[in-house]
């Protein structure tokens, strides 16, 4: 493999100066002249019919410029599951009934935020409360209240996945165990709340929207549907985004109502959610029930696996149906499972809805599978790392009809883990344990629920006379560092420097479609599109240089270090900048352009490539208080060719932080549909003093589907954090967990249970009894 000039070198964030000086503008920071402030009136009831809404008093309040209710909106329904219209279930404002506490039913635009808030208090609404349902197990019963009229038993989506012969597999197993789990919901808690600034141009009938999103394209198509206008009349611009984590995929009522209010008033309108609205009305990681049955041979190889889940979907779909499907696939990775069956149900309930939060589909399932596997390993007397090795997939492994691993470094990751542990943690103290969890995650999804007719990723470049490059794409940097990755890929392909690239990303008017930042897709998919665009220009430059050199046609030329030269005789060549000038002259003065795109074909159902690895957590449990101290973390990681080691490390460590939070303290307790902890005071996020050190070892592979061999590095490492920690506690004291969030009271109970179990075992051993098989 050739040495790269830029790829693989630690590269500071190209957005660095903007973000450390405060100059970078987020939607949150933006205002326009003559701008109005919008606010939403939200339902206090989880399920109620709207009998009447009286806005007359609110309208008389000085400073109020517009008030709208459902009947004043264009009434278009939208959602990310556009391909299945019945699942496009969101609306700007509730028309006839509200479905969760916080469902919006009226919107106000006023000259100040305070006046808009005061106006909300003056709106009189008469409700007829309806019976509500909060638990998915209740929701699917025949007599449950219906959240949406067209969905009997509140079944929003179902998924069935099966390969091999599961029943036969269980018959062949030497050991079978079943475990049931309840997984808690968690909130993404982006620091920048959902907010949108919309400006409607009365003269042209066109709408411009600045919004905090991971996908300008999704917002564009959803707004067009909600407003019943053409996509081309909606321009969406993504400024800097203050955190996404999967919670900014859906188009939310901030964007749609800001747009409608701007269309009504002819003035720019901004809607900013407050933190309470962010917690109570924006999307979260779905709470769910899972049942796992696993069959293994005595040597620890898995022969059959069966998974059932029901998820607490909430009032609308979002990407919840995709999460349901991915739960069924990621729970198998990265293990060889010859016989597998999955059945998932997503139930509508009267709570805010769950969706595609970071590591979506992987996080709850991996908690269950990896903790179950440790129990199986204990019962079979196999080392926990060894049982993972025995089941780990190899390159080329295919899950029939579902997915295929091309690059696949899980085995070398496990080897390296074993080697590193010996020196890193030679001794484990009292009440301390080391827990493991393997993981794998997609590099962008293949599925097309958004039903786009466009390429999944596109990029366009323009090379100017001075050699600077303008790079255009709808791809989105949401903090993960894609702007830096995009510039690096473009620069590497053209053989120039990062400083030569000018980025114009995240604007629907400037570029062809890219589906945006979700499912760890930008590096591979947008990276491929950028590389494609740059390669087209590079070909032209090389042709010009070849012509000028007049060398043997069989000689290869390369573009590298700002020169274009003969590969075997590097002194024979030209400056990149000179060749660009010649090429533009030769092109009748037209700047050089390239348009690249990428859409995966024939790559299975999930993704063209998978990042993977294994994580170990060392933890200590306090048997008196139930406190779990996470002492240290080690990850061995295969994300293909690392593009930017700084960014990759940031993604890995950020994922671990959020994943440990999922395992230790993050939860969304509700009472009758009311969230009980909607603030950073009560919703616990791991702070500086809570975080262990993290060591990450990269085991690079070459991914043939990725740009320069790269694949996913953003989300995979969130899923193993909680199970590796729970397994560390299990190894320390035998405590078993059937739910995430290892809060002290839960740990104490589990420790007591484990102690009781140990006593029973000791007693029965003393008496000389043997449990019959």
């Amino acid at each position, binding site marked *: 493999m050739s040495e790269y000039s830029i790829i693989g070198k630690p590269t500071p964030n190209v957005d660095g100066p903007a973000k450390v000086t*405060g100059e970078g503008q987020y939607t949150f920071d933006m205002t326009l002249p003559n701008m109005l402030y919008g606010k939403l009136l939200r339902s206090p009831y989880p399920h109620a019919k709207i009998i009447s809404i009286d806005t007359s008093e609110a309208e008389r309040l000085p400073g109020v410029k517009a008030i709208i209710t459902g009947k004043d909106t264009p009434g278009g329904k939208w959602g990310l599951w556009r391909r299945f219209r019945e699942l496009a279930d969101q609306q700007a404002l509730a028309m006839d009934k509200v479905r969760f506490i916080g469902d919006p039913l009226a919107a106000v635009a006023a000259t100040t935020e305070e006046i808009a808030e005061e106006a909300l208090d003056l709106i009189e609404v008469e409700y007829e409360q309806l019976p509500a349902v909060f638990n998915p197990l209740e929701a699917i019963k025949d007599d449950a209240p219906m959240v949406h009229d067209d969905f009997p038993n509140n079944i929003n989506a179902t998924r069935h996945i099966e390969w091999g012969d599961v029943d036969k597999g269980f018959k062949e197993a030497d050991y079978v165990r079943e475990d049931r789990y309840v997984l808690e919901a968690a909130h993404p808690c982006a620091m920048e709340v959902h907010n949108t600034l919309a400006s409607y141009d009365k003269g042209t009938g066109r709408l411009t929207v600045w919004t905090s999103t991971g996908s300008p394209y999704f917002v564009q198509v959803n707004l067009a549907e909600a407003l019943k206008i053409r996509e081309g009349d909606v321009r969406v611009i993504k400024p800097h985004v203050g955190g996404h984590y999967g919670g900014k995929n859906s188009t939310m009522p901030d964007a749609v109502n800001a747009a409608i209010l701007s269309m009504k008033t002819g003035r720019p309108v901004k809607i900013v959610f407050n933190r309470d609205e962010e917690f109570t009305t924006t999307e979260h990681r779905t709470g769910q029930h899972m049942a796992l049955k696993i069959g293994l041979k005595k040597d620890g190889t898995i022969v059959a696996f069966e998974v059932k889940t029901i998820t607490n979907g909430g009032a609308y779909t979002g990407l919840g149906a995709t999460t349901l499907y991915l739960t069924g696939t990621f729970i198998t990775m990265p293990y060889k499972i010859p016989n597998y069956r999955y059945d998932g149900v997503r139930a509508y309930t009267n709570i805010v809805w769950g969706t595609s939060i970071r590591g979506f589909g992987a996080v709850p399932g991996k908690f269950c599978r990896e903790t179950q596997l440790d129990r199986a390993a204990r019962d079979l007397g196999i080392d926990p790392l060894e049982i993972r090795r025995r089941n780990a997939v190899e390159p080329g492994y295919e899950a029939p009809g579902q997915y295929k691993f091309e690059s696949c470094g899980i085995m070398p990751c496990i080897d390296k883990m074993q080697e590193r542990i010996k020196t890193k943690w030679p001794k484990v103290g009292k009440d301390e344990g080391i827990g493991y969890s393997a993981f794998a995650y997609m590099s962008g999804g293949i599925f097309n629920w958004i039903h786009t007719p466009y390429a999944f990723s596109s990029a366009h470049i323009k090379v100017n006379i001075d050699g600077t490059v303008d790079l255009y794409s709808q791809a989105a940097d949401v*903090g993960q560092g894609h702007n830096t990755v995009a510039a690096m890929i473009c620069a590497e392909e053209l053989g120039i420097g990062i400083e030569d690239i000018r980025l114009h990303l995240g604007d629907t008017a400037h570029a062809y479609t890219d589906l945006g930042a979700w499912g760890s897709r930008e590096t591979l998919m947008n990276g491929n599109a950028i590389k494609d665009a740059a390669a087209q220009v590079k070909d032209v430059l090389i042709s010009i240089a070849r012509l000028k050199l007049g060398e043997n046609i069989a000689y290869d030329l390369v573009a590298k270090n700002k020169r274009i030269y003969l590969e075997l005789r590097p002194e024979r060549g030209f400056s990149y900048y000179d060749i660009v000038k010649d090429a533009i002259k030769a092109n009748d003065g037209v700047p050089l352009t390239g348009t690249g795109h990428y859409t995966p074909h024939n790559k299975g159902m999930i993704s063209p490539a998978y990042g993977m690895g294994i994580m170990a957590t060392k933890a200590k449990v306090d048997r008196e208080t139930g406190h779990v101290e996470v002492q240290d973390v080690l990850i061995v990681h295969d994300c293909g060719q690392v593009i930017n080691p700084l960014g990759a490390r940031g993604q890995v460590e950020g994922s671990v932080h959020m994943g440990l939070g999922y395992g230790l303290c993050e939860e969304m307790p509700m009472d009758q549909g009311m969230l009980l902890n909607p603030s950073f005071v009560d919703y616990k996020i791991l702070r*500086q003093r809570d975080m262990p050190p993290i060591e990450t070892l990269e085991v690079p592979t070459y991914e043939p589907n990725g740009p320069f061999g790269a694949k996913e590095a953003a989300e995979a490492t969130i899923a193993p954090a909680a199970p590796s920690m729970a397994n560390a506690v299990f190894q320390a004291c035998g405590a078993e967990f059937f739910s995430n969030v290892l809060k002290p009271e839960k740990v104490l109970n589990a420790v007591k249970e484990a102690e009781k179990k140990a006593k029973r075992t000791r007693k029965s051993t003393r008496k000389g009894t043997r449990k019959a098989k």
Partner: protein
Amino acid sequence: MKRELNIVVNGESHNLFVEPRTLLVQVIRGELGLTGTKQACDSSSCAACSVILDGKVVKSCSVLALQANGKEVLTVEGLADGVELHPIQQAYIDNWAFQCGFCTSGQIMATKALLDENPKPTRQEIRDALDGHICRCTGLNMIQEAVQDAAQRIQAQKSGKGA
């Protein structure tokens, strides 16, 4: 009734009239348009809005503007020396100590206050000083490294100037 507010922000004097209930962050972001200072919680619990008030780091959402009357405020916009980034800012960039960047201004101002008071903090002292700052992106360790790096850069700068 609006009251007079005399305040020095990033070295510039401002004479304003504000309602008594106005928060310092509202003056900074709204009246002065210095949007580098962020707000993220409504409950004084995330520290994204941290600024330095007469040498001490404060959450600007928890201080009334009038409490800052006659005082000096430093926000993230006032840190760089013209086009020259402050060593703390450069250290945050070089250590990838931010991702989305929304909490970064607050982290940087708290780092400034810490290093002004304690030029060579230990890792634990850094964790203690920044414990109140929520960051959802970085996993926090890389922030600790940036603060250590910044401390060294400032030391080097000082000794360089001294020589």
